[in-house]
């Protein structure tokens, strides 16, 4: 069975740090988007028509907020996966180092 190791110890450690940061920051962003925070209005992709043609304002904008929030949560979940893969790589690297010496 070919070795599952594809990156060195330093890259795997960077991967773990990046995924922890990604999980925390993206899930917090997701929470803030779901809470419809006003400061994040510029990050929501609304257009002029959305505001004008809205029958029941501001439900359209709220819907967009929720969509972006869900995107953030999905990205956080992907980063959990990346983190798990990096953790495996770190363990494999440690085992290989132990076997060589």
């Amino acid at each position, binding site marked *: 069975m070919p070795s599952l190791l594809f990156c060195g110890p330093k890259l795997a450690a960077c991967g773990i740090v990046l995924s922890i940061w990604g999980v925390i920051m993206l899930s917090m962003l997701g929470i803030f988007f779901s809470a419809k925070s*006003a*400061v994040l209005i510029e990050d929501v992709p609304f257009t002029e028509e959305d505001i004008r043609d809205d029958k029941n304002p501001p439900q359209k904008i709220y819907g*967009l907020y929720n969509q*972006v929030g869900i*995107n*953030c949560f999905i*990205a956080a979940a*992907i980063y959990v996966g990346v983190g798990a893969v990096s953790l495996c790589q770190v363990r494999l690297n440690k085992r290989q180092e132990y076997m060589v*010496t």
Partner: protein
Amino acid sequence: MSSLFRSEEMCLVQLFFQTESAHNCISELGHLGLVQFKDLNPGVAAFQRRFVKEVKKCEEMERILRYLEKEMVKSNIVIAATKEKEMVPCARDVLELESTFEKLEQELREINRNHAALRQNLIELMDIDSLFIAGVIKQERFPAFEKVLWRLFHGNFVLRHTEMQATEELQARGAVKKDVFIIFVQGDHVREKIRKVCEGFRASLYSCPKTLYERKQMSNSVMTQMEDLRMILRRTEEYRAGVLTRAAEHVQEWGSKVKKMKAIYYTLNLCNIDITQKLIVAEIWCPVSDLTLVQSALIKGSEQSGSSVTPVLNRIQTQQTPPTFNRTNTFTEGFQAIIDAYGVGTYLEINPAPYTIVTFPFLFAVMFGDCGHGLVMTLFAVWVISQAESLRKWKNELTDVVIGGRYIILLMGMFSIYTGLIYNDCFSKSFNIFGSSWCVRPMFHPHGPWQYVFNFFFLINVHTAPHISVWNIASNKLSFLNSFKMKMSVILGVSHMLFGVALSLVNFVHFRKFQDIFLQFVPQLIFMLSLFGYLIFLILYKWCITLRSETAPSILLLFINMMLFDYQSEHVLLYRGQVWIHIFLVLTAVLMVPVLLLVKPFLIYRTRMKTRHQVGEQNHFICFLLQVSMGDIFVYQAIHTIEFCLGCISNTTSYLRLWALSLAHAELSEVLWRMVLQVGLKISSGMGSLMLVVLFAAFAVLTVTVLLIMEGLSAFLHALRLHWVEFQNKFYEGSGYKFTPLSFDSLLKTQQ
């Protein structure tokens, strides 16, 4: 009482000890790490000193140790680390250690030589185990034959040829000249190829040795020889590994012993040995509070060597300036290092380090001001602090700098979180924690819809929610922030400089220069307060009162008009009686300049005249030669005055870099968010999450490299410059030399 506030009081002590106990006494002092040996033979060259041979021996031993360590690293043998304090060997053990080292080195070199020779033999044997073919060919065909063989085997063969001796018979028959050749080539499968080539060239082949049986015999003998050689090589390697492993257990211990011995011999070179060869005299600088410790260490050392006479300590008075010693611990040594990098403090001068522990991270944070970045920096610093010992093993210069400054980075990160909360900036987004204190109603007050209310409630809330979150998306954000940050920088700058001037008062009191308090400290203070203290007052006053925005006077214009005495009726004033106060303040400041410039030289002149009258005419000539001339004093005072007065303005302006860098940082962080992360957030379809994953990785990498490392280094440098130049030139002299004690701990740490 020792503290970081001021450097320690030092004393010069003479030591007398016996030659036999010299090693032990000096080693005890080295373990203590509190004394600095003075060089009693300054005129002697390095190769003329007494113990130069012993130092050379130690260096030779170090060389052998380095060679051993290199061999161990090559063979992947782990070097055991020793933790206990080793005793320094005396002269007898030195010889034993030396012979052990030399024996080890010789053994190792011999093993390596044999190993190389055996390996060479093996390779040669492997060559013999190959095919060889002999034959005869016409001479003119030979070069082409050789070329074909080259192309076929790419040079992996050996071809030898020689002219055949022509017998008379053959010459008579007119036979063509022929060459006999022999080819050595590896591998069995090439026989067919060679046969074909030889057929093509019409060469006749003879295989030798003649019989197959002999060939087989030879091949077998070669194989057995190779097996033997391989076994010998394996045994040699095992033996070598055994030798190195046995040595590896001790190599670190030996290394530290050798380093200590070298340090002791170096120290002995600095001392004086008297005529009878029995007594060694040394002069040391040591802190007054540690004299008892030094005494007990010496007694212990002399007891160890079994000498009957205890060493004698004799404190002597001296006019020389002692070295500057600041007692630091792991937390404060980073901050002391950045102060010492500019200049080690003069003996017994006030030490700026304890204030730097707070003001340096604070000024850094004012320029860095982002709580998200501050949080990342704090976490990084916490990780470095917890892993400091294992990171030190990397022995990289960059990591050493980071490890040395780990507490500085921790404080910088924590203060950045604080200022990030004040600026309300976290990865360029803001929080809405306390709600807005902005009132819309006064905008529609009877005074008109354009009234700009920057009212009193804002100031009360300034410490709880200074920047309301909605400023973040306002389009006129920068015009508000710029004004706020510039005024804040000036306030911080003037306060920092006033603090520096106040510290000079402490120095004057300590050195009992009471005259200087009235001639230097008081005029400087009055000058600064009347001009720049008043500027701060104007800023704070304007923040507190209500004004109509279209008629509000600019503070800068007010200040310029004050200096130019330019008072016209259409200028708006902030309060009644402003004109008279301005005139009073400017006149006071201008009056301080001649006080600073002239009074001190005049007083010195007067005292000189008085002493000259008293001393009389005969000594007049000598006195004149010994004193500094009046012209020099006057020029020095003029330079000092100009530096202070003009420096006030330029230094205050220099503090505006606090505004400039914080603006740059905020803008960079916003650009990064908008150009990188927002692109991913704005995609609302399903692909948005994947794009977000990739873009977040890019955002994180760019944040760390550009915003944390580059901006962090830049803000660090600017905060450091503000301390070194603008703050310290108000009181710091920095013309001392550092106390470098003989300390085995720091010796072993630096050379590891």
